[in-house]
């Protein structure tokens, strides 16, 4: 049972990696190095202190009076350990400051600029482009090209959130009415899971994101697809599904570019089927899960802003058919 759970955890981890111990970018590598240095230094010290303690316990106590404690040998030991502690702490301090500087030294020129806005409980992701027509909006999944620096401009629409993809960098807070930035680079392709790292309310735990690092050509193809407006419905069912979307509560909060739905309260659904998960990493993006989510999101992610939608079965099916076509 426990083994099974352990295997499950490993498998999920291999699908979307979230670990400080497997760095995939220069900054995470620096942080990982610092972690190693601190772990081994303090680990060795811990073992030495314990050995000395045990030796003290083991040695037979001499029947002496306290005045014999003032011998020169004891003084030497005290001085030596104070000097050693100072030197070690100072070395760790220098290592820590050096890593702090190294992680913020990445050259952001010739890179990508991505605006990330935190919401309770999901992430709006916008790619800044000099041409307005090439500006794209998506949610919760951030594609980046391998080997190119990416500047994340972080802000929040409600409370403080924190952006943390441990394989690539440390944490950075998203503050309401203020912009923060974080520059990172992924050197290995892969899917890196990230998580909100500042308690932000009821569903803080279900506020995940994914950074998908891929080769430049693959990234360009993804980008070109995202720039396009939503696919026109083809089948009769899809046409009906679009009508359901536009005539019910969906249209009050969501955008599907190319239709009349232009609201910005919830995630952009123009290419919803191009994403692997829904509800900020809560569920896999499959028809059944999506149907359950639309019918009653409160039973899956209690407190989420999206209300339950009591649709007729044929309406729900048509709506799902349409959303599944938005690749």
């Amino acid at each position, binding site marked *: 049972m426990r083994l099974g759970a352990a295997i499950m955890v490993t498998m999920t981890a291999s699908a979307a990696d979230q670990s400080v111990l497997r760095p995939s970018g220069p900054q995470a590598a620096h942080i990982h190095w610092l972690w190693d240095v601190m772990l081994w230094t303090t680990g060795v010290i811990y073992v030495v202190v314990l050995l000395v303690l045990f030796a003290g316990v083991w040695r037979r106590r001499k029947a002496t009076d306290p005045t014999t404690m003032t011998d020169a040998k004891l003084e030497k030991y005290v001085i030596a350990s104070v000097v050693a502690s100072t030197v070690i702490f100072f070395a760790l301090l220098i290592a820590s400051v050096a890593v702090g500087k190294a992680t913020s030294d990445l050259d952001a020129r010739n890179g990508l600029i991505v605006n990330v806005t935190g919401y309770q409980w999901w992430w709006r992701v916008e790619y800044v482009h000099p041409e307005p027509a090439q500006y794209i909006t998506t949610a919760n999944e951030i594609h980046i090209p391998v080997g190119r620096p990416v500047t994340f401009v972080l802000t929040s629409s409600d409370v403080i959130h924190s952006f943390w993809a441990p394989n690539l960098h440390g944490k950075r807070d998203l503050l309401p009415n203020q912009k923060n930035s974080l520059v990172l680079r992924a050197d290995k392709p892969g899917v890196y899971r990230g998580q909100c790292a500042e308690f932000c309310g009821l569903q803080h735990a279900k506020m995940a994101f994914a950074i998908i690092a891929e080769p430049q050509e693959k990234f360009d193809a993804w980008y070109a697809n995202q720039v396009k407006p939503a696919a026109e419905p083809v089948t009769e069912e899809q046409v009906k599904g679009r009508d359901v979307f536009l*005539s*019910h*509560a969906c*249209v*009050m*909060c969501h955008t599907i570019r190319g239709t009349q739905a232009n609201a910005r*309260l919830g995630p952009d659904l123009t290419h919803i089927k191009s994403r692997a998960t829904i509800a900020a990493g809560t569920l896999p993006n499959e028809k059944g899960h999506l149907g359950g989510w639309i019918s*009653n999101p*409160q*039973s899956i992610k*209690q*407190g989420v802003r999206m*209300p*339950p*939608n*009591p649709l007729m079965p044929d309406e729900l099916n048509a709506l799902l058919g349409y959303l599944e076509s938005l690749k």
Partner: protein
Amino acid sequence: MFLRFLRPYLIVALVGTCACEREQRQFNEPTAASAPVQSVRLTPQQPGPQLPEIATDAPYAENAYAVNEGKKLYSSYNCEGCHFMGGGGMGPALMDDRWIYGSDPANIFQTIVQGRPNGMPSFGSKIPRYQIWQLVSYVRSMSGLLKSDVAPSRSDSMHARAPEAMMKQEIPKQ
């Protein structure tokens, strides 16, 4: 002796439990239910038999959490686009004592559901019922018609007027 030491804490705990209902959060709201009676009297003048004047208990008139949700929805659904922060602009003011289509919760509910001439859109098919009731309670709080411990006492952004909890009660004229 020990009890005497505990007494103030017990009193505080008791008072605390009284406020629980005020903050109660419900996440699985009944969605289709709780539409008000069909014929709501909109104006004092009407043909045929006079409809009785009604006084409905709005579902969220006593729930501070729901009223705050209403406040959030008021800006999310762009009510403030026309009514502004209650002072009115393109749409009528909501913080005064004048109600063109009635001040009763059921009247406000129908106004939001059906829409009204000269610009008020119909939101009936677009917003779940429970959110409309949250908006109704919030709209009533703007002219001081809710209890001050239920009405919102602060705003997230700068406001030109006092918070809803401090608004003077405007007795509706009709």
